[in-house]
C-alpha cells in the first residue's frame, strides 16, 4: 500500500539512512546487507504489502516473515519508515533492553513476525502460514524474505517442495541474492545456480530481477500478486552489498563490512547529498 505521496526511491533512501544511523550507534551491524536490501524492502512495504502501521497484528495484513534474523537492522529501518516503529528509538538499536536487538525476534519488536536467525526456518513457517490463511479464507499473502546463504539449507528445499505440492499461490518468497555468505562469496561456498531454474523445477513461478532496480522490483511484485495460477512465487533479487554509498560499495566486501568510526557521518552525508524527491 502506498502511504502518502512519497516516491519509492525516497523510501529506499530513507531506509538506508535509518539503517546507517542505527549502525552508527553500535559502530557495527549488518550495514552492507541493509544498504543492499533497501530497495527490496521499499518495494515490499510501500508497493506490495497490505498492512496497518498502527496495528501490526491486524488479521488482514500480508505476513512478512524475516527468515534472516541478522537482516533485522534493514527491517527495523523499513518499519520505522512505515511508521510501525518510532524513529526516536533508533538510538537504542542493539542496546540492553532495546526493542531492536541485533538479531530479529518476534517477542521484542512490533512488526517482526518471526524469530529468524537460525537460518533456513522462514520458508517452512511461510508454508504453514500459507496453509492457514487459505483455511481461514483470508486473502492475505505471506512473504518470506531469505538470503542466498539459506539456499544451502536442506530445509529450504523441503519447504519449497511442500509449497508447490500444496499449491500455495498465496506465498511469495523473496531471495536477497547478494552473492555473500559468512565465509565468502556464495557462488564459491556452495553453488546454488541456476536458482531460478531450480525453483521452477520445484513447481514455482520464478522471476529473477535486479534487486536494486525499483521499477523491476515493482513489476515483479505485480506479476507475483496477479498471477492467475496457484504456483508459489519466488522473486530472486540480485543485489549489491552496500548499495548507495559508493565508498563502501568499493570496499572489499565481506559478511561484515568494516566501517571506521568517522565514516558513518560521511556515509550519511553522502546520502544527504543525493536525496531523491
Amino acid at each position, binding site marked *: 500500500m502506498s502511504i502518502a505521496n512519497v516516491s519509492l526511491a525516497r523510501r529506499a533512501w530513507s531506509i538506508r539512512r535509518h539503517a546507517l544511523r542505527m549502525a552508527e550507534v553500535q559502530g557495527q551491524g549488518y550495514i552492507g546487507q541493509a544498504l543492499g536490501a533497501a530497495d527490496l524492502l521499499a518495494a515490499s512495504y510501500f508497493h506490495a504489502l497490505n498492512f496497518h502501521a498502527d496495528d501490526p497484528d491486524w488479521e488482514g495484513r500480508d505476513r512478512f516473515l524475516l527468515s534472516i534474523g541478522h537482516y533485522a537492522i534493514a527491517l527495523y529501518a523499513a518499519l520505522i519508515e512505515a511508521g510501525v516503529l518510532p524513529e526516536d528509538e533508533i538510538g537504542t538499536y542493539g*542496546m540492553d533492553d532495546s526493542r531492536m536487538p541485533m538479531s530479529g525476534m518476534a517477542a521484542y519488536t512490533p512488526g517482526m513476525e518471526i524469530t529468524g536467525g537460525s537460518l533456513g526456518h522462514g520458508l517452512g513457517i511461510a508454508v504453514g502460514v500459507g496453509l492457514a490463511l487459505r483455511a481461514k479464507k483470508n486473502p492475505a499473502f505471506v512473504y518470506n524474505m531469505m538470503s542466498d546463504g539459506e539456499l544451502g539449507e536442506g530445509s529450504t528445499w523441503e519447504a519449497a517442495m511442500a509449497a508447490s505440492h500444496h499449491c500455495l499461490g498465496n506465498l511469495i518468497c523473496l531471495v536477497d541474492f547478494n552473492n555473500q555468505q559468512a565465509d565468502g562469496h556464495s557462488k564459491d561456498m556452495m553453488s546454488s545456480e541456476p536458482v531460478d531454474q531450480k525453483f521452477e523445477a520445484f513447481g514455482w513461478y520464478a522471476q529473477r530481477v535486479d534487486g536494486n532496480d525499483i521499477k523491476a522490483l515493482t513489476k515483479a511484485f505485480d506479476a507475483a500478486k496477479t498471477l492467475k495460477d496457484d504456483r508459489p512465487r519466488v522473486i530472486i533479487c540480485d543485489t549489491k552489498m552496500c548499495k548507495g554509498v559508493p565508498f563502501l560499495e568499493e570496499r572489499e566486501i565481506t559478511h561484515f563490512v568494516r566501517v571506521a568510526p568517522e565514516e558513518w557521518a560521511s556515509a550519511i552525508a553522502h546520502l544527504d547529498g543525493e536525496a531523491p524527491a
Partner: protein
Amino acid sequence: MTLSRRKSKYEARVATGGPATSAMIASLEAEGYETVAAPFGHALVDIAKSNRKIVGLTADLSKYTDLHVFAEAFPDRFFQMGMAEQSMFSAAAGLAREGFKPFATTYAVFASRRAYDFICMAIAEEALPVKIVCALPGLTTGYGPSHQATEDLAIFRGLPNLTIIDPCDATEIAQATRAIAASPGPVYMRLLRGQVPDVLGPLGYQFQMGKAQFVRRGGDATVVAAGFMTMRALDAAKVLAAEAIEISVLHSPTIKPLDEKTILTAAANANLLVTAENHTIIGGLGEAVAGACMREGVHPRFRQIALPDEFLDAGALPTLHDQYRVSVKAMVEQIRGWLT
C-alpha cells in the same frame, strides 16, 4: 491471534542506554589474563602436519570457528560445505568411514539442534571418529536464543558413544585438540575462538581426557566447574580468599564420560559442593554430578550455578552474565550466601 509472549514482552522493553551490544561476536570478560589467537586452528594445523588423515569441514563458519587457519594451511584437506549443517555432518561420517579423521565445525546451536539426528545415526551409532568442534557454547554471545547454545550438553549427553569436552581456555583447547585427534571415537568439543584467555597455562596444567583435576585447594567449599566457568571459579576464589573464605576448584572438562571417581571423592570430603557450568541447569555438568552422587550414596550439601531454564535475553554479554548469575561477582555472592 496475538501470542501472549510477544505483547507482554515488547511493550515492557525500555532501552537502558550505555555502550551495550547484542552483537553475535563478543569477547568474554577475562580481566588479567593473556590471550592467545585461534588456539584450535593453530593446534589442528600442527597436528595435521604429521597426521595425513585429518581433514576439516565447515558449514560456512570457518572464519568464526578458527578453522580458516587450517583451511589456509591445507586447502586440499579442507571442505567448504556451505550453510548446510546436516549435509556437513553426514559428509563427515562418510569421510570417517573411508578412514579419514574429520574435524567438522559450526556453532554449537546448529550442531546440537539442527544436525542432531545426523550426528546421532551417521556418526555416534557407528562410533566413527568425527570431531565436532563448535563455537558459541552456552551463553557466549548476546545475540539471543538463535545463537545461545544453552542446552547443547543436555542434548549431547543423551547420545551413547559420544565424548563431550568443555575446555576452559587457550591452553586446554590446544591440548584437548591433540587428545581428541588421537582418540578413536566421536567427540563433541565446545570451542572458545578468536582471542582466547590463557588461564591454566601459567598453572602448569595438562589436559587428560576423562580426568577432573584440582586447580585450586581450599576447605570451605568445592566448586566442580567446566569450560570458562573454571576461570570464573578461580577468579571468584581470589575474591573470596580476601574474605578468608577458601574454596577448592575441581576442573572437569570431560563432561562425558565424567570422572566420577575424582568427583565423588571430592564430594564426600566437601563442606559444600557447588557445580558451575555455562549451560542450563537442566542436563549438564551439575545434574551429571548430582546423579553420580545420588547413585553412589554420597550426599554433600549441594548447590548449582547454571543458567536458568529459559530462553535467554539478547543483550551485552557482561550484562547477561550478571543477570543470569554466571559472572565472577554473581558467583562470589552465591557462594558467600551459601556459606553464611
